[in-house]
């Protein structure tokens, strides 16, 4: 059916996902957005789509959901990229398929590996055994985000893949992915650790001046003196190995500003997720990070767009009075409901477009069931790839 599309006031540019994935200059795609919007599934679907269109892809996920691994035919995911078994012939794209690998970030393992790679065995052993390090590598906030960036750097350096797709950690705010690593770097190189680890009555004390004694006393009073000892041993060993940690964090951060990186902001059609998406878009602009477009996931579109909520309800009431056509009455009520949801979602999307008119958007229709196999991921990939024409045509993308 080629119905004319429903009237819209603010049309965003179409997000051509296929063009982005097909472009050999695209080397890294970062999927970000608030929790529960379908980031991980989108990342996996993008990976599959790109692989079936000929790219050599690795997807780094941080979501421990077993089902995602299973949907890719993998038993579990771990810190090493594992090959995903792709069917032949590129899923009907007519192109020769590339390859798809998937891994799940293990932040502690990744941190340990960095330590092992940089320190001599004795010092590495010292660091790994330090309780403060163990806390830092397994539960400090920011470590996961930082390690995701480190992993990205490692995979890029390996040169084994020509496209890396990163799914970002589920943090309080989508911005955490950008902020947390720097915060951690600042802390590791910062004044606090220097003060805490400085042996008493040395030059460092005089340099920093008054207040140091107060700080160490306070902290040891609040958290206990033992921690200070641990911090001291940790900093001594760590500094000898890494020197300027903050610079390392910034180097990794700059990777995200490279022109071959593309950010995709994933959102759901609800006010919170779209507000978060808007914050993120603004931030990417401030930090000169390349935004490719926005994916609005799980939208509801009706094929019968020219039958409004009001018309549909009026018709439902009319037949209901006659009492003869319960099926038609229910069908009209169902449609009224869908038309209402659709109108609301379009309103929300228009609000985003009004604030960011140049940002390309693609919508992925909601599915009746969750994704649990490659076929499901492929369908989402198709919706992403053919997105623009699909919802503009307003034909078969009904759901919900």
């Amino acid at each position, binding site marked *: 059916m080629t119905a004319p599309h429903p009237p819209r006031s603010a049309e965003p540019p179409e997000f051509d996902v296929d063009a982005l994935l097909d472009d050999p200059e695209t080397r890294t795609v970062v999927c970000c957005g608030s929790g529960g919007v379908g980031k991980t599934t989108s990342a996996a679907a993008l990976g599959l789509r790109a692989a079936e269109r000929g790219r050599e892809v690795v997807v780094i996920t941080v979501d421990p959901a077993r089902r995602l691994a299973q949907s890719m035919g993998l038993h579990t995911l771990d810190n090493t990229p594992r090959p995903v078994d792709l069917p032949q012939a590129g899923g009907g794209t007519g192109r020769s398929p590339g390859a798809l690998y998937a891994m799940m970030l293990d932040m502690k393992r990744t941190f340990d590996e960095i330590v092992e790679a940089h320190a001599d065995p004795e010092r590495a052993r010292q660091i790994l055994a330090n309780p403060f390090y163990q806390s830092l590598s397994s539960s400090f906030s920011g470590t996961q985000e930082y390690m995701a960036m480190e992993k990205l750097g490692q995979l890029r350096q390996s040169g084994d893949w020509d496209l890396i797709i990163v799914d970002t950690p589920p943090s309080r705010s989508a911005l955490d992915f950008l902020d947390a690593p720097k915060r951690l770097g600042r802390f590791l190189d910062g004044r*606090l650790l220097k003060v805490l680890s400085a042996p008493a009555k040395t030059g460092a004390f005089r340099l920093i001046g008054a207040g140091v004694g107060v700080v160490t006393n306070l902290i040891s009073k*609040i*958290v206990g003196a033992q921690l200070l000892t641990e911090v001291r041993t940790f900093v001594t060993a760590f500094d000898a190995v890494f020197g300027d940690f903050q610079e390392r964090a910034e180097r990794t951060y700059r990777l995200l500003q490279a022109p071959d990186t593309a950010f995709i902001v994933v959102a759901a059609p609800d006010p919170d997720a779209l507000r978060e998406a808007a914050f993120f878009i603004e931030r990417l602009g401030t930090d000169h990070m390349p935004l490719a477009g926005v994916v609005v996931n799980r939208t509801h579109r009706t*094929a*019968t767009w020219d039958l409004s909520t009001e018309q549909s309800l009026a018709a439902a009431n009319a037949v209901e009075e006659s009492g003869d*056509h319960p*099926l038609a009455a229910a069908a009209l009520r*169902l*449609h009224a409901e869908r038309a209402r949801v659709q109108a609301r979602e379009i309103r929300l999307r228009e609000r985003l477009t009004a604030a960011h008119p140049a940002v390309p958007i693609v919508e992925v229709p909601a599915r*009746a069931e969750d994704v649990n196999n490659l076929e499901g991921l492929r369908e989402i990939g198709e919706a992403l790839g053919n997105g623009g024409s699909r919802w503009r045509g307003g034909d078969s993308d009904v759901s919900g």
Partner: protein
Amino acid sequence: MRGIERGHDCDSRLRGVSARESEGDGAGVRLHVVTGKGGTGKTTVAASLALALASGGGRVLLVEVEGRQGFAQLFGCPPLPYEERKVADAPGGGEVLALAVDAEAALMEYLELFYGMRRAGTILSRFGAVDFATTIAPGLRDVLVTGKATEAVRRRAGADRRRGTREAARAPFVYDAVVMDAPPTGRIAQFLNVNSEVAGLARVGPIRNHADKVMETIRSPETAVHCVSLLEEMPAQESLDGIAELTEIGLNVGSLVVNMVREPLFDARTLEAAAAGELDTEVLTRGLKAAMLDQPEERSRQLATEIVEHARRVQAETKIRRWLSAVEHPMRELPLTSDGITVESLYELAGRLREQGMA
């Protein structure tokens, strides 16, 4: 509640809560922690629950811990400061207040309260220690925010004047209940298990003692953790995993709230036929003709597509509902609001929660 039980009839009569508060299966619970997968509507459920608990004259505090200003958005008021502000009247004379907990402000307050050291805060801040405690250190931020919520739970009227006296211990509680919009299910067990969280950093000392005290309230029967789910596979799986985790660390799980439930529109036989692709479109066409719609055949075909999709979805939802109802905790359902959440709809949802005995 405890204050009321111990004979503060006067105060409770004034607020008219005593008769109602002893009803329902949440009796005795004063800290309600609301969690759920992102996107399930935790904030909406927390706000509705607060209204439900306050109705009939209660005084309830909503606590937000992730800096989203979700309550300000919901109630249509300016961003909340670190201060308890009234956001809504409950039906029957009650009131709901809201607080956006800010970890840094909570830390300063803590330092002043326990050490009498406001100046210390400034020094710590200069050395990056405050930034560390509130954004980097594992668990410290959580202890600070849960500490603030549990303090509100324990706070009694006039506590400042009468601290430590026997009179103070009998004074009525300032809040009948505190409702917390907590982090998502994936992080909830870790978030609430504060003393094990700070254990790596503080094995002894005042922070550890503070964590232990917070934990005492969280572990007590006065606290219940409610999980919000949808009739979708991933949120349902997360809820079940979350409930298992919470139970394992010995926390009291309250209700499983299934949010955004659609009202049934079709009878079971129609749905079954539609899902099997055997919907009678001629019957539908005749009905649309009777409704005087133009192009009835074309519309019938289009609407049939919608019904089939709907039927497949209802089938999936039925499976998930059955799966969720195997949980031994009470299950509540809240309807989908297709126009989005408004303040009016919060009152409506609060009514539904009361009908189902959650408040």
